[in-house]
């Protein structure tokens, strides 16, 4: 079997292009070439639209055709509550239909008017520091940014930016509740793992912007999902901490501006949560990852019993390997960081770039 290399990026310097998307059509409010900061609003949209159907013909007791000819508004027009929507020709008994709400005329058809109610639009922040290089169909913008990147395994769907605060001496440091106090307000806290759901409560009370962990015990998944701030795991679920490549990059980046995009992993689109540290310099776009594994590639293990460990490919095995559990898979011999050599399925490792 031709097993493609799954790649996870941990890069000290790269150029990224990231799409920021509105879930529904809206308005892009930045222009191409504009520099953006994490908090810059790039687009806005009414993501929970509410419509009102005004039956003008029925309301005025006239035919739909006549109602159409009496219309005083056009699609796209903004209405304020009380505005005239339709009116008969002026005379002693002029019939008038007024708008019951603020909104925008979306459609006029067969004597009815469809109005989208005016609502405060949802705002989409840039999250990344960079330049708008493309605007796509009024929904999405592409931001190009330069800096360091750590791709993660899991995210709780939120996003934020702030200075990084490293709270780990080793890749497996456990974050304690008493580590979090108001002095870390507005920061993005990085640690190896945590073992208590109270960390999320304490983090919220302290006002941290985001939490970056190597791993998380599975019983804390729902606490992490409900946390009011972004939470990302570089390596997944368990108590094994952070892979060494991510640890080395993040632990030496204390106080650096950081963006955490905790978008959930989307298998079909290939998007992953990530941590990005912008740098005021130039770099190159991420080179295409190799299609297949090769000797000396740095990899990390994504399943037990070596979950979270990194190592190097010694060689690819010519035949499929059969494992104690019975599974057969294309495999490679890996030399782990501690020197141990193990045979692992290619499907259970990720190339670290």
């Amino acid at each position, binding site marked *: 079997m*031709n097993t*493609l290399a799954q790649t996870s990026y941990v890069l000290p310097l790269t150029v990224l292009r990231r799409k920021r998307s509105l879930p529904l059509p809206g308005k892009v409010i930045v222009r191409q070439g504009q520099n953006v900061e994490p908090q810059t609003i790039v687009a806005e949209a009414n993501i929970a*639209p509410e419509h009102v159907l005004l039956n003008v013909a029925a309301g005025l007791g006239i035919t739909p055709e006549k109602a159409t000819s009496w219309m005083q508004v056009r699609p796209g027009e903004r209405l304020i509550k009380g505005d005239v929507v339709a009116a008969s020709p002026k005379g002693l008994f002029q019939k008038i239909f007024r708008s019951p709400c603020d909104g925008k005329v979306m459609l006029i058809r067969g004597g009815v008017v469809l109005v989208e109610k005016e609502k405060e639009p949802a705002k989409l922040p840039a999250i990344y520091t960079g330049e708008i290089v493309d605007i796509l169909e009024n929904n999405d913008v592409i931001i190009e940014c330069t800096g360091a990147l750590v791709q993660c395994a*899991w995210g709780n769907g939120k996003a934020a930016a702030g200075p990084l605060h490293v709270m780990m001496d080793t890749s497996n440091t456990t974050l304690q509740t008493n580590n979090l106090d108001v002095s870390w307000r507005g920061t993005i806290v990085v640690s190896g793992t945590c073992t208590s759901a109270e960390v999320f409560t304490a983090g919220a009370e302290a006002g941290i912007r985001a939490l970056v962990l190597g791993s998380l015990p*599975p019983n804390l998944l729902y606490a992490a999902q409900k946390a009011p701030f972004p939470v990302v795991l570089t390596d997944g679920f368990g108590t094994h901490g952070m892979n060494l490549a991510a640890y080395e990059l993040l632990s030496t980046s204390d106080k650096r501006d950081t963006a955490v995009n905790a978008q959930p992993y989307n298998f079909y689109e290939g998007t992953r949560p990530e941590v990005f540290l912008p740098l005021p310099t130039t770099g190159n776009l991420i080179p295409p990852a190799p299609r297949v594994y090769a000797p000396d590639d740095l990899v990390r293990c*994504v399943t037990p019993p070596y979950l979270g460990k990194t190592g190097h490919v010694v060689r690819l095995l010519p035949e499929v390997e059969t494992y104690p*559990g*019975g*599974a057969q898979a294309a495999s490679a011999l890996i030399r782990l960081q501690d020197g141990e050599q193990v045979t692992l399925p290619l*499907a259970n490792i990720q190339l670290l770039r």
Partner: protein
Amino acid sequence: MVAIETTSESLLALDIGAITTRALFFDVVDGQYHFIAAGTASTTAAAPFDNVMEGVLMAVDELEQITGRTLIGHDQNLIIPTATSGEGVDAFCVVISAATPLRTIVIGLLEDVSIASATRLLQGTYAKVIDTFTLSDPRKLEERLDAILRLRPDLIVITGGSEQGASLSIRRMIHPLRLALPLIPQGQRPHLLYVGNTALHEEMQSIFKDMAPILTAPNVRPALNIKDLEGPHPALASAVMDIYIQRIGGVETLHHWASGGAFPAATTHGRMLRFLSQGDTTKGVLGIDVGASATTVSAAFQGTLHPGVYPSLGLGPQLAELLHGDPYEKLSPWLSANLETSYVSAYVFNKGVSPGTVPITEEDAAIEQAITTYALRKASIQTAKNIATSLNTQTNTGGNSLLLPQVEPIIVTGSPFTQSLNIGRSLLALLDGIQPLGITTILLDRYNLTTVLGAAASVNPILAIQAMASSMFVRMALVISPVSHARLNTPILRVQLTDKESGEEIRQEVKLGTLTVIPLPLGRRATLKLQPLYRTDIGLGPGRKAAYEVAGSLKGIIVDARGRPYHPHKDPLRREEMYKKWLWHLAH
């Protein structure tokens, strides 16, 4: 009898799953079509490739290396038909299941009538119903319009009205849709499928043809007491393919290569099951496919398919969602090893973010077995309920709608079975998950040929029939599932197996609550005599005995006398002990 002319010889078939892409080659050997070889590669539908063609070319490349035959030209196009130099193939087909389930809204009249039928229709493909609009919907028209805009479905199925029945209500029900579609940008609008009263076909076309892609099909509920799931299915499959073409890079090229031979995998899997059930069989045929994108438990009886495609039970990225809450609690009844809660939950959550991984250790294999069993059990119960509603099979299942009717054979595919050498584990997952009744053979379809040949039938029917008959399935076991009201550990069945060649005889008395394995290796034939005790039913009626000539298989004959429905022991230590014993029996 109609003679079918063979117009093609060699055939290349592609099977593009969520994780793996397979390229399979068929050709004529000794005047008969045979499956020759397969090449496999990772599927590349997702980033960074965003195009299935990368995986396709790699799989075909491996196939070319195995067969020594060039199939793809220098221009990266398929060489079709075969050139005089021997390069290329004569026919090509492709099946696809590598996409997120289609988010679907169903608009109909009555929840229990047209909506229920349309929902059943959608169980024949990779779709997830995210909302339904009915006459009794308390939401205002504007709220339903808002729901369409907010939910952004991929597909909207409109149904309702029997033939010569309601039309006014259907016109009323589509009103929110008529208002919503113009508000959605072109290119993002959902595909529409109308499967209601056929008298409105033209009207639906004329209303919607300028707004969104629309297909009309036979009425899924032509009369109050008649469902037609097969008539509208081709249009549903066509709508699904159109969406795949729009959404998955490279599918358009394959569709062009296939010139009509590109299908959703669920469609061709169902087609082949239907075909197989038309043979000389009094029982139905059951098709199992446990994959990353869906778990399928579909059955066909005398040419009628009862589809059961469940994307929510797929073992890929939706795994964490499937086991939402406490994965351990859901899996523990089926766990063959006593593992820590946190270990099991972490394994499940990590599998959700790395869906293509394979279990290395015995412990991980035990978790995967439990996950497969859980998904199969849920899917089997749902399909059993659907069949019971359609066929009124109460007597066939002993009055239990949680069990599937008797079938022969059960054809199994999917990575939990095809990528493991531990046949014992695979069989236990199947027995616990499906809980078959009566006497049945379990066949392993290592290369998902059932699905692929369902597509091949559209370009070369003879090939599909001959290749199907050329013993391409591996016989895993013959399973006998006696049902008895006797007390636990009471002997309920006497089994006598006489080897045809050696005359060697095995006699065994099977007790209620046990799982017994009687070896009969592949290639051997034997006479099997079954004598039930205490009015035990082996699928022929209480106390009725039987004698058969049987063929050997990987695990011979399994008598699963654990009861139906089988409920695992509640005590984890006792359960582990029992599973250990059964796995040992199945391994030796």
